[in-house]
């Protein structure tokens, strides 16, 4: 972003990578897949790189409003300095926080999830999706809570999966009734409370009931939780857990 600014350019969109997308080895593959699609579609985009910092979502949901607002105000200063207008992110938690909680603190941007952005590229004819490797495969989509219930985005990821000529199979609990993967509300960063099962196991059972070849996710944390769930049932050789961006990049052989 700094480089573009120095050259007097404004990108079409700022790609907010997020902590998982920057540091987590699995999520980095999602980041790279998404970047490949953006490059392939000739989208002018920028990342904040080392100037990006945690949105503060996990701190806020853990109850630390101070830390959240500190992070928010620092990020807003950076984003406003670069005159960011449109932000795309592959993390529904970053998406929700930037979209809903930053405006009151002075950060007003058009914030979209990467599945929404890819759908708009598709609608504008800038992105072509062909089934390729996924033609006819059974794919089930796990709704991330912070994309679905929290922000009512249910259709964009489904449209993209259908464009892969795949067979989209719904779990018994989907869309507004979707079950959480167990990572939200800062649970990702702590051990679960005493119970008789882990939430991700319960959710992976829902997914496996649909006999899928791929469990599609739209969130790096859901991705981790579902991957762990699939491993728990020792199904990792039959069932892959992939982000929508990875599905599209793979289908296009990018």
């Amino acid at each position: 972003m700094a480089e573009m600014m120095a050259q007097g350019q404004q990108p079409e969109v700022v790609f907010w990578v997020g902590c998982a997308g920057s540091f987590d080895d699995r999520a980095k593959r999602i980041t790279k897949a998404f970047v490949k699609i953006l490059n392939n579609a000739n989208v002018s985009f920028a990342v904040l790189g080392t100037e990006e910092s945690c949105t503060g979502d996990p701190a806020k949901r853990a109850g630390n409003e101070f830390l959240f607002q500190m992070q928010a105000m620092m990020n807003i200063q950076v984003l406003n300095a670069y005159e960011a207008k449109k932000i795309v992110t592959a993390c529904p938690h970053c998406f929700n926080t930037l979209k809903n909680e930053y405006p009151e603190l002075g950060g007003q941007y058009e914030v979209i999830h990467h599945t929404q952005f890819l759908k708009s590229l598709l609608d504008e004819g800038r992105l072509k999706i062909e089934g390729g490797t996924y033609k006819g495969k059974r794919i089930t989509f796990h709704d991330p809570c912070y994309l679905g219930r929290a922000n009512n985005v249910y259709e964009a990821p489904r449209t993209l999966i259908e464009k892969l000529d795949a067979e989209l199979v719904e779990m018994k609990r989907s869309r507004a009734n979707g079950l959480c993967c167990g990572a939200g509300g800062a649970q990702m960063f702590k051990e679960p409370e005493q119970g008789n099962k882990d939430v991700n196991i319960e959710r992976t059972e829902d997914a496996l009931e649909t006999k899928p070849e791929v469990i599609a996710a739209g969130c790096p944390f859901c991705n981790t939780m579902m991957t762990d769930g699939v491993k728990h049932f020792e199904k990792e050789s039959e069932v892959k857990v992939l982000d929508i961006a990875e599905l599209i990049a793979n289908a296009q052989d990018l």
Partner: protein
Amino acid sequence: MAYLDNIFFAVVLALGVGYFALNVKKLMRNIKLGQAVNRTDNPKARWNNMLMIALGQSKMVKRPVSGIMHILVYVGFVIINIEMLEIVIDGLFGTHRVFAFMGGFYSFLIGSFEVLAVLVLVAVVVFWARRNVLKLGRFASTDLNGKPRSDANIILYFEIVLMSLFLLMNASDFWLQQAGVSHYVSAGSFPVSHFISPIFDGLNEGTVVLLERTFWWMHIVGILIFLNYLYYSKHLHILLAFPNTYYADLNAKGKIDNLESVTREVQLMMDPNADPFAAQASTDAVPAKFGASDVMDLNWVQLLNAYTCTECGRCTSSCPANQTGKKLSPRKIMMDTRDRLEEVSRNIDANKGVFIPDNKSLLNDYITTEELWACTSCNACVEECPVNISPLSIIMDMRRYLVMEQSAAPQSLNAMMTNIENNGAPWQYNQMDRLNWKSE
């Protein structure tokens, strides 16, 4: 002497309505113990929510069996209460079926009331069976042990008795009309109760008149008792669902409010020109504490939520933590909030209008930290609630108290927060490595 009945009726009515009014006043006082929150913006969307969700029951039918039967009971109760108007006028002025002059329309009204009464009876019996015979998970749950379970059944018995009295009253009235007893004008159609009226055959007119009067009186007195039972039960939702849906949060469910008191502090910290001493002068505007440990720290809409909750348990049955055996139950969060608020209310009543600290609080004495930390903030409970209650907002406010006032987060979360403070990510990675993915 002839007016004795009417005077007695007026006294009973005044007592019933008056005592209820006193409790409504108390209810409003208790709700106002909550913190201020502005929920008057966008009245159009608010009216729309109230019409669709409370009046139109749009969220109830997400579970079709209970949803449709609930609509029967709801429509039945609302419409049959039109009959109340006639009963009150008859009672006060000594008339009988004062609306009979409406003729065909009156017959239609009475006829439809009777059909609805039967449908209500059927639905209520099914509801009873779901709780006591089928023992559905959300009704068998330990959340409801003790009073809440008997409360739910008492309400169902009440409804059975009231509907039966209504039909018996009509049946005896119909019998007297047929017998041509004076005062019993021939009016109304009785599609259901004319099947019941033969049970009075063989009795003399005087006895049936006595029975008719008994049913009539028991019906109206029963309704007044039921009205006054509301405040002591979970059944307040029949009234509070309306304000509750009106004042519900209109923002995207994912949005958690930004604490303004924190915003002020953070702005002071980040503004190099801020004068820390000038800021001191305005500290009276800063609330005594961050987050909530007791009901008075919650906002008034959250307290209204607590009184509105009718313990249906749809929230808990959809909660991922609860489904996997954790202690958290969103329904219990609401019940605990209400029970603590009632305890505070009794304290205020006993101490001449002032709350005397009782060394108890919503946190720990009612809701444990284990419940609070089990929440994934997934909003399933908020989505499910048929009247737009948000247990999640209470959980979040209590977490805020634990973290910002007591520094009592689980160790692993403290580590996560330290990482964010030190290196801008929840994990311990170097901020300077953020772009490494580019070249990997």
